[in-house]
């Protein structure tokens, strides 16, 4: 055995055993002595094979259950809780505003006007709950897509670690048929990031251009 080629190991994994067998097959097919360059190349190839095998094992041993059973559901639950808590807080703020509107009706005059103006601003500000809820909904959708992909990748490499050949990639999940997706659903993208959407002024101008 040339220098740098490790002897066969009794505790080798099936992947490592395959690498050993491949190296030995190459060696057996060579006539005469190996040159130093050929030996070095074989050693490099063997090292590379072992690195790939280790990477496959590490991916296969990832605690995918932690990700799929605990981390992602926990993250989505936390996000759902955020939506629930902000909705609850917003409704309490709105309760207070409705009480204040009653007070404004009784005091009248300038005080009523000032109160009414402030209440209107609170109503306007409370619409944040809708926007944040939609943004969080987008994040939950992204998390679920990641969860599905991680499960798919680890399932494939678990099969390899168990000595099976790499299964074919699972087909992508079917997209809804174009004819079954309405224009309203297709164009529903949710809130845009600041600067990405058009302003109310731009919308007014756009609508005016149609008239």
């Amino acid at each position: 055995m040339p220098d740098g080629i490790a002897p066969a190991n009794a505790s080798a994994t099936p992947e490592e055993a395959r690498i050993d067998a491949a190296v030995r097959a190459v060696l057996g097919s060579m006539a005469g002595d190996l040159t130093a360059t050929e030996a070095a190349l074989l050693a490099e190839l063997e090292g590379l094979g072992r690195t790939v095998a280790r990477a496959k094992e590490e991916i296969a041993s990832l605690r995918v259950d932690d990700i799929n059973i605990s981390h992602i559901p926990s993250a989505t639950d936390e996000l759902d809780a955020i939506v629930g808590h902000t909705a609850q807080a917003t409704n309490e703020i709105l309760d207070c505003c409705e009480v204040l509107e009653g007070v404004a009706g009784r005091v009248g005059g300038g005080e009523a006007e000032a109160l009414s103006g402030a209440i209107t601003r609170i109503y306007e500000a409370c619409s944040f709950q809708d926007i944040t809820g939609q943004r969080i909904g987008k994040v939950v959708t992204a998390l679920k897509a990641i969860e599905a992909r991680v499960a798919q990748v680890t399932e494939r490499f678990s099969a390899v670690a168990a000595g099976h050949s790499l299964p074919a990639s699972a087909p992508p999940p079917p997209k809804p048929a174009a004819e079954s997706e309405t224009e309203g659903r297709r164009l529903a993208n949710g809130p845009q990031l600041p600067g990405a959407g058009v302003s109310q002024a731009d919308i007014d101008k756009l609508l005016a251009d149609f008239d």
Partner: protein
Amino acid sequence: MDKNTPVLIVDDYKTMLRIIRNLLKQLDFENVEEATDGSEALAKMRAGNFGLVISDWNMAPMTGLDLLKEVRADARLKNTPFIMITAESKTENVVAAKQAGVSNYIVKPFNAETLREKIEKVMVHA
């Protein structure tokens, strides 16, 4: 502008329905009904006689745009003023809504003055 006209507000966020209802109350619109998606809104419109619809876009199962198309295709409802209030702020959304016959379009977050101005505008033309 007749402030006794029945108004239908459509949004899947109950909080948003409450905010819009309260803002409408400040504008003296007291005759307000609610729906939480397009199909519920369409059923209410077919059963009632609304003079104004204020609808969100992103709802399930029926979106605001699909509701708008249904309304414009219905012989009895087709002339109902329809304002979209939505977080959908891409040009393609505004164009699609206009092509479907929206009366006006308000992007969230919005202020009370914008709501008042758009309502006045669409009710004048109603």
